[in-house]
C-alpha cells in the first residue's frame, strides 16, 4: 500500500527550511519550481539576509522576490536548478474529511510529518472574506511556510498559523495566483482593528497609504473585513474616510483621502 510514508518522503524533498541569517527565527518553505522559486510565509521571510536549507543539507542564500503581508505569502529565489519541485493540487475542490499531511520543521525538527483531515474551508473573521483552509493537523512554530498536501502528495496549501489548535493554511490556488500575478493590492500599513474602525499603527514610507498622506495614528472609519473586501475588489483607487488627532480634542472632522493602488498583472489565460 502506498501510505503516508511514501507521500511524506516525496514531500520532504520539496520542503526546505528558511533561516534568517540574523538569527531571527526560522520556518519552512515549499520548492515551487525546479529553477529555484521557493514559497513561504511573509512572516517567515522577514529579514533581508535569508538562507534556504534543502532536504539533502545543501544551504543556499535566498533573495525575497515578492511579499503579500495580507495573505502572509512570500516568494524567494535561490540560485539552483533541477530542484524537486512540489506538485500543486487544486485547492478549490477540497472537501472536509479528506486526508492531509503537513511537512515542515516544527521547533527545528527538519522533515517532521503530521497528518489529519481537512476540517473546513472558509473565511476567518477579521481576516477578510477570502477562504482559508482549516486542517486538523498538529502544527508548531517552524511549520509556517511549509506544505499542506493531500493524499496524493499534491500541495493544497501553505501552512500559516494555528488557531484554536487547528492548522490554518493559505489555499494553493491563492499561492499560485500570487506567484503568477504578484501580491494583491495593499495599503502598506500595520493595522489594529478597534471598535470604531481600524487604527493605523505604522506606515511603510513607500506604500500606497504614505502616498495618500495617511499617517500612523489615523483611524480609518471602516471594518477590517470591509477594507480587505475593497482592496480585493479590483478598483484602482480607494476612497477612505478617517479621523486624525487625539479624541480628547473635541469633535474631530471626518477627513477623506483617495489611495491609489498599484495595477496588478492581468489574469494569465
Amino acid at each position: 500500500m502506498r501510505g503516508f510514508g511514501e507521500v511524506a518522503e516525496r514531500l520532504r524533498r520539496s520542503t526546505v527550511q528558511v533561516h534568517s541569517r540574523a538569527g531571527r527565527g526560522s520556518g519552512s518553505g515549499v520548492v515551487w519550481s525546479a529553477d529555484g522559486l521557493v514559497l513561504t510565509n511573509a512572516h517567515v521571510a522577514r529579514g533581508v539576509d535569508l538562507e534556504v536549507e534543502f532536504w539533502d543539507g545543501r544551504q543556499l542564500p535566498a533573495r525575497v522576490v515578492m511579499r503579500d503581508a495580507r495573505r502572509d505569502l512570500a516568494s524567494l529565489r535561490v540560485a539552483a536548478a533541477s530542484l524537486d519541485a512540489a506538485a500543486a493540487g487544486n485547492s478549490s475542490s477540497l472537501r472536509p474529511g479528506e486526508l492531509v499531511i503537513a511537512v515542515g520543521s516544527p521547533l527545528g525538527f527538519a522533515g517532521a510529518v503530521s497528518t489529519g483531515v481537512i476540517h473546513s474551508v472558509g473565511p476567518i473573521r477579521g481576516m477578510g472574506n477570502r477562504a482559508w483552509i482549516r486542517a486538523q493537523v498538529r502544527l508548531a512554530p517552524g511549520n509556517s511556510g511549509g506544505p499542506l498536501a493531500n493524499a496524493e502528495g499534491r500541495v493544497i496549501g501553505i501552512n500559516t498559523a494555528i488557531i484554536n489548535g487547528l492548522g490554518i493554511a493559505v489555499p494553493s490556488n491563492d499561492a499560485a495566483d500570487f506567484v503568477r500575478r504578484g501580491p494583491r493590492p495593499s495599503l502598506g500599513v500595520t493595522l489594529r482593528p478597534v471598535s470604531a474602525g481600524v487604527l493605523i499603527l505604522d506606515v511603510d514610507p513607500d506604500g500606497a497609504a504614505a502616498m495618500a498622506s495617511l499617517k500612523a495614528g489615523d483611524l480609518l472609519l471602516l471594518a477590517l473585513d470591509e477594507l480587505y473586501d475593497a482592496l480585493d475588489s479590483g478598483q484602482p483607487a480607494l476612497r477612505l474616510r478617517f479621523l486624525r488627532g487625539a479624541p480628547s480634542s473635541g469633535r474631530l472632522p471626518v477627513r477623506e483621502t483617495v489611495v491609489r493602488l498599484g495595477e496588478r498583472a492581468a489574469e494569465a489565460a
Partner: protein
Amino acid sequence: MANELAAFSKELAAVVERAAGSVVSVHARPRFSSSGAFWRPGILVTAEHTVRREDEITVTLPDGSNAAATLAGSDPGTDIAVLKVEAPGAPAVAATDDPAPGNLALALGRSEDSGINATLGIVSAVSGPWRTWRGGRLDRYIRLDLTLYPGSSGGLVLNAAGQALGIATSALSRIAGLAIPASTINRVVDEVLARGRVARGYLGVGLQPVELPDHQKGLIVLSLEPEGPAALAGVLIGDVLVALGGTAVSDTDDIQTVLETHGVGRAIEVQVIRGGASRSVAITIGERPRRS
C-alpha cells in the same frame, strides 16, 4: 496517481458529504455557536450545555440559510436538547448502536462562516450503561479519541461506514469527548416530545450507605424532604433502606437505577429496617424538582 491512501481519503470525504445535509449550526449562546443534527424530520438535537437561552434560538441550515428554532425541551442529565425547526430537514444517515474501540470516528460540525467541518479520530473505549455527573444515564459510554474544537459539541459522530453513533459532547467527561449514544437520544427525544422534559423519579430523602451488624448493606435516611414522597409514606429519619422494588440497594446509584425503571406517579415497595425490625412501606414516586 491513484493509490489506496487517496481512495481512503475520498471515502472519508464522501462519508462527510452524505451526512452534511443533516448537520446544522446552532446559535443559542453568546459568541460561539455550536452544532446540531436532524434526528427526525423537523426535529434537531444538540448538546444541552450549549443552549444558554430559551428564546431567540436560530440555526444555520445546510443550505446556508438561517431559520428560527424553538426549544422543545432538554435533558441536562444526558446533555441533550431537542429543537423544533420550521424548515425542511431530516436525518441523512442511519444510526447504529454498535461501536467498538478502535473504530474510526468522524465528528461533524457546522459553522455559519465556513460550513460543514470534520475531525477524524477513533472510538477509544466503549462500555455499558454509564451515569453522567449530571445525573442522567447514557445507554453506553462511548469515549472518543479526537479533538472537539470549539463549536463542535452537538454535531454528529459517524463511523467509517457513515452510520451515526450519536452526537458529540465535551461536557460529560473531563478527559475526553464522548458520543451521546443514538439509543439514548431516541429515548430522550421520545420523552421530550411527549412531555417537554425527562421526568426523573424522586423519593425526597437524603441517604448515606451503611453496613448493618449482620454485614447486610443499606442506606440510612439522614434527611427527609417535608411533604416529600418518602415523608408522606411514613418513612422516618434513621430508617435503613435495604431494598427498593424488590431489589437490594447499597448505594445511591442503585436507587437511581431502580427509579429509572419505575415511572413517576407509581407506587414502589420499599423495605426498611426500623428499630431492628424489618418493615415494608409503599412510596408513591415523585418527580425530581428541576434545578433552577
